[in-house]
Each structure stands twice: as C-alpha cells, then as structure tokens.
C-alpha cells in the first residue's frame, strides 16, 4: 500500500474510534462553537472529549511542527485528514483566533522560547486569544494606532484603547499592536502579547445591530507587560500585523461559500416554500432570477477558490486571485442574506419570541451580522485599493 493510503486507512480507523457520535452532526448553535480557553463552557461534554482527543495527536493544528504540539502532517496528509473528517461530517474540534491567526504568525516571527511557551496551549485549546488591532481613531488606517507601550526597564507600560476586539470579555490573552515610537508611523509599531487578567485591562461588550455582543471596547490603564512578551523586534510589529491580517482575510473570505445560519436549506427550496412554486419553478420570475444569479456567483467563487488551491499545490504561487477573496466572498455573503430576507418576506422581519421559528430569527440576525463582513479585517474599499495597487500597479 502507498504510504498515503496507509495513512488514510489509519486516520479513518482512528476517527471512527475517537469521534463521538454527537460530533458528527452539523450545528447552527453559536453556543456550541468550541472556543476553548480557561473559562470554556461545554454545552455538550462530547465537544471537550473530541477536542482533547484531536489535540493529543496535534490534529487541531495538523500541519504545525510536532515540537510545538502540532500534528506534523505534510500538506497531502492534511488533505487526507480533512477529507476523512468531511466523510464522517466531523465538526472542527476547535475554533480559535490562536489557531487561525496568531499561531501562523508566531511560527514565522516568534523566538524559540516564545513558540514553546505559547503555541502548545493554542493547539490544546487551553488559552483563548483575542486580537487588539482597531482603535477608535484607527480603523481602515490601522497604522495610525495610538495605544502606547513605554519602556520602563524591565517591562512595558501600556495605556490606550482598542475597539472591535472580538470576544475580549471571554478571552484569556490578547495579541496587541502598540505604539513604541510616536515619531514614526508604520515603523513605530510593536507586537505584544499579554494576559487579559493583568491589572488595568478592562473589556466592555458592545451591543451590535444584530442584538449580539461579540465585540468589545477594551481599555488599558497602566498595564505592565513583561518585556519577554514582545514578538519580533521593537518597532517592527507592522510586518507581523500585516501577515496576520492575511490569515484573517482568508478566514473571513470563506464566508462567501455560505457557512453560518440558514445555509442548510438551499435558497431555491426556501424560495419555493416561502414565496411560492409553480410548475416546479420559483413562481416569481424576478425572484427566480435573483436566486439563480446568486447560486451561479457562488459556484464561480467556489471554483476560483479551488483553482487557486490547485495552482498553489502545483507550485504556481497563490496567484493574483487570492487578492480578491476577501472582497468578493464577503460581498457575496451579504447579498445572500439580503436575498434570504427577501425570500422570507415578513417571516424574515421578526426579532424574537414565539411568533417566528428559531431558523427565521437566525436568518434575520445573521443578515444583520453579515453587514460587518465587508468592514472587519479591512473594508471592501481597502481590499479594492490593495488590488489596484499591488496587482494592477495603478499609481497612488
């Protein structure tokens, strides 16, 4: 047997034996998202078992080096693992900014000591991270951030405010951009890690238009951060920040494929159910055209993600196409929810209570949530600027 086929068989057997049955069903319940961390709440105890078993093999981070607790798998082995997990509809064992954003940046930029300290707890889901990037005065112009870190000999003293800090109220640690040289812009930024229980840290949830509060305002008042928690060189944090944003954008652009609430029912079946069917077709011709346009755009986008992945695998670079993923994926997702709202009619206009099904309320809330997709992680306008400058070479 080929080594990769042997690996597939072993993986299949192991997953069969170790993935709890309740982890092989899809869920739309946000309370079931396995964020991990010191204060993790396990609504379904199987989720914790599943996480621990996967983490014991390093398969929460399949391609990270074994030295830091990762799975040490090759790209091909990871593809096998992912396809075997899909085969049994296994849920992702861990949802984590540490996994998606910080970890890859640490692997590239952190010292050996830092990697040993911070990466294994990410793999095991023990520490939940949040991202301290945006500030009230630094949104699209992120490098204009003002939160300052002063050198006090054996520590940095951090003062300032962050905003849109996802789940800061539930996170254990923060990776934070701070100004260490006020006389420079991009070259005066550093990348710091610190514990959210450090005195002087306060996170206040912000109520969003969807009614949820996933984001916080986060205040720092004389927060003492040990100097060993500086990642990379002093004043060179912007390079790390940009790389991490790339990971964030690729994470967000996956939304265009229609994850999230309401994705289990197809647009056309929703449209037939809510807006009427005639001779097997969506009765209203104009609505039918919107539905088919949305489906065809989604299919074309999915094919583009696939093409880029294949090009990358063949060693042709990630290709210029990746520059558009964040822009196109998020705009597609927003359009999808607008369309679902149109399809649901007044059933899509409920806020809460018994008058509407949980799925209907879920779609309404997700429609509101989706508006942020083209703002967070770099607005659509910033993405278009990036394409115009870096890909097309248009002048400033």
């Amino acid at each position, binding site marked *: 047997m080929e080594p990769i086929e042997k690996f597939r068989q072993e993986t299949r057997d192991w997953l069969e034996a170790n993935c709890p049955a309740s982890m092989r069903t899809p869920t739309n319940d946000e309370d079931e998202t396995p964020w991990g961390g010191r204060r993790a709440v396990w609504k379904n105890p199987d989720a914790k078992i599943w996480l621990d078993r996967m983490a014991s093999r390093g398969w929460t981070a399949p391609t990270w080096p074994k030295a830091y607790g990762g799975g040490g798998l090759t790209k091909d082995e990871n593809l096998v693992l992912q396809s075997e997990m899909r085969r049994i509809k296994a849920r992702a064992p861990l949802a984590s900014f540490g996994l998606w954003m910080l970890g890859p940046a640490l692997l590239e930029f952190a010292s050996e000591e830092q990697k040993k300290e911070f990466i294994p707890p990410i793999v095991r889901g023990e520490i939940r991270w949040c991202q301290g990037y945006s500030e009230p005065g630094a949104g699209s112009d992120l490098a204009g951030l003002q939160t300052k870190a002063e050198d006090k000999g054996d520590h940095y003293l951090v003062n300032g405010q962050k905003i849109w800090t996802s789940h800061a109220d539930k996170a254990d640690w923060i990776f934070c951009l701070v100004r260490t040289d006020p006389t420079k812009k991009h070259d005066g930024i550093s990348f710091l890690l610190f514990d959210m229980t450090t005195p002087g840290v306060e996170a206040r949830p912000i109520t969003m238009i969807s009614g949820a509060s996933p984001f916080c305002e986060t205040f720092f008042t004389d927060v003492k951060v040990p100097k060993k928690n500086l990642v990379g060189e002093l004043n060179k944090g912007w390079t790390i920040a940009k790389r991490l944003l790339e990971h964030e954008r690729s994470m967000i652009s996956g939304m265009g494929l229609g994850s999230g609430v309401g994705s289990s029912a197809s647009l*056309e079946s929703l*449209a*037939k159910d809510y807006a009427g069917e005639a001779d*097997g*077709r*969506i009765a209203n011709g104009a609505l*039918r*055209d919107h*539905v*088919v*346009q949305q*489906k*065809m*755009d989604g*299919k*074309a*986008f999915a*094919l*583009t993600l*696939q*093409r880029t992945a*294949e*090009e990358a695998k*063949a060693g*042709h670079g990630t290709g*210029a*196409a990746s520059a*558009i993923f964040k*822009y*196109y994926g998020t705009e597609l997702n927003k359009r999808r929810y607008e369309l679902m709202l149109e399809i649901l009619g007044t059933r899509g206009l409920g806020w809460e209570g018994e008058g509407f099904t949980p799925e209907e309320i879920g779609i309404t809330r997700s429609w509101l949530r989706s508006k942020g997709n083209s703002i967070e992680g770099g607005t659509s*306008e910033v*993405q*278009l*600027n990036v*394409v*115009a*400058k870096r*890909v*097309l*070479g*248009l*002048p*400033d």
Partner: protein
Amino acid sequence: MAMVLTEEQQLLRDTATQFFQERVSIANLRRLRDTKDPTGFDRGVWKDMADLGFAGILISEKYGGTDFGPVGLGLVLEQAGRALAASPLVSTVLLCGSAVQLAGSATQRQEILSAIAAGEIVMALALEEGAHHNPAQIATHARPHGSGYRITGRKTFVLDGHVADKLIVAARTSGADGDKSGITLFLVDPKAKGVTIARTLMVDSRNAANISFDNVDVSSDSVLGSVDGGNDVLEQVLDIARIGLSAEMLGLVSEVFETTVTYLKERKQFGVPIGSFQALKHRAAVMFSEIELCRSVVLDALSALEARRNDVPRAASLAKARLSDTARLVTNEGLQMHGGMGMTDQFDIGLYMKRARVAAMTFGDGNFHRDRYAVLEGF
C-alpha cells in the same frame, strides 16, 4: 479542474499566442471589413490554422486530426479572442465537426472530418429561426418525399452560412414548433435547387447569413444521426460551442482589461495619471475580480468536456452566462475609461465591444443561460 497544463498544451498555447499576434492581428479584421471582403475571413490564415492543427483539434488522428481535446481548443480560442481573429473555428470545428463526430455514419465521418481537419471545407449549422436563441423553436420542416426528404423553411444568423461548402440543417420531421423531439439534422449542399443564401453584414464584421429552403430535395443518406433524434446531438454540440465561445470571450475581456489598465497608467489629466483616481481604481479592481471568476468557470467547463463529466450542460451555462455578462461590463467600462478616444473607430476598443455583443448573443446570452441553469438545478 485541469489547472496545470501538460507540456503538449503549453506548446500549443505558445504556438497559438505567437500565431494570432503575428499572423492575425486586428489589422487583419479591419482590412476584411474595409475592403468588404466577400469571404469575410482570410482563407490563407485558415489554411495556416489547419496546418498548425487548430482545425483538427477535436478530431481524432484516425481522420487526420490532432485530437488535442477541449482544453487545447480553449487555449487556441482564448488567443483568437484576444486578437479578434475571424475564422470558421466556431462554425466548422465547434459546431459542424462536433455534430459529425457525434452523429455521423462511418462514411460521413471519413469524408467530412478529414476535410475539416485539413482545412479544405467550411461548414455552417442552419439552426436559429428567431431573434433569440431557442434550439427547439424549429418550424422549418422536412417531409418524406420519394426516397428522401423535402425541406422548406427559413433560417437566420447562420454563422459562415454564405461561404459554407456544406450545411447542416435542423428541420422538423415530427412534432410541433417548440418540441424537443421530432428534430432531424440534414447535410445539405448549399448549391442545391431551392436554397437561397443572403449574407447579413454584422456589427462585429464577421460572417452570418439568412438562408431559405424552398422545397429542397435531399436523399435519405443526408440524414445526420437519427430521424427525430436531432435534439440530443444539438444539445451536446451547442454546449461545445457555448464553452468555446466562452473561452474566446475570456481572451477578449482579458485583452480589453489589460489595454484599459495600461491606458489608465498613461493618460494624464489634472497633471496626474487618471489611474490614480480612486473612482477608476475601484472599478478596475472590481473588473479584475470578475475576470478571475470568469477564468475559473471557463477552465471548469473545458475540463468538464475533456473529462466527459455529466454536468457539462450546467458548466456550459455557468460559463456562457458569466462571460456574456462580464464581456459587456468590461467592454463598456473599457470604452468609458478611454474617454472620447474610445468612441473613435481608430481605437480598437469599439471593435471588441461589437464582437462581445455578437459572441454574447450567439447560442444564448446571460438571460438564456441563467434560466437554463435554474431549470437544470430544478427550480
């Protein structure tokens, strides 16, 4: 998706790129137009294309073809689209060659396919009868007469119809106008008694014709495929042509877009390149995104054909709808961004816009293919 080209395909692409750039520049199309060339394409160029193996690209080696397959053909068409090269590729290779390959008898294949591969004959498919693509809307009828058939009806938008050495005519042998069954394909000699051909001068300076059939007698040997079973062949042939036209339009939009971005960098107003204005930058970046999606759907459709996947109709409609719509967007934006110069005949952008509209309308535009996709998806 067959993303990574084989060595043979890379060679073919390089050959096609060089050939269309050097041998079939846009000056070639302008000359055909300005001299009111009676043929409407350059026969010398077509012979060269055949010698390079382009005419036999879908034809097996048994009949003198090169059998490079659909992905190879896509590479050639993309380059032809960039150069706006007029040739009988669509009429003769995509449509009629495919029809004979799929439905022809051993004798028909032997005779016709080898002639196509050698670039010796031009063929045309007489299908459309109305202003919009509608392959089942066939009123032209063929009634049994003696030992053969007698055909009467009118066809329009027959690509290369006035220069064809042989016609394939879709005619009704049973059923009513609009029925998918009851359509039969006939091989018809354009010089036969009762055939009247009138060239129609099109906005893209390429060939099309109106053809009327007035009691045209054909033998029973001239049936291509089975009597009443023409629709199955037509559907497959049309999907090949739709995918091929999508590949041509991919070349067309890529060329227009690149030319436009270059213009944005060079043209100065208010003392700066107009490409520094965000109003134009964002529209250029949006077009770039759309074209990347176009490339994906075209490659997927070509791969579907090559691998004989069962979702060819869906992939064809996905590609043809997207390319038809994006070709409109990119040529309109390209013209606008060229300002007044874009309105002049001297600039090529107008030629691309004209071709984009004809290619979009050929065998179904965005509206047609979105509707078809919805039907294929069951709604």
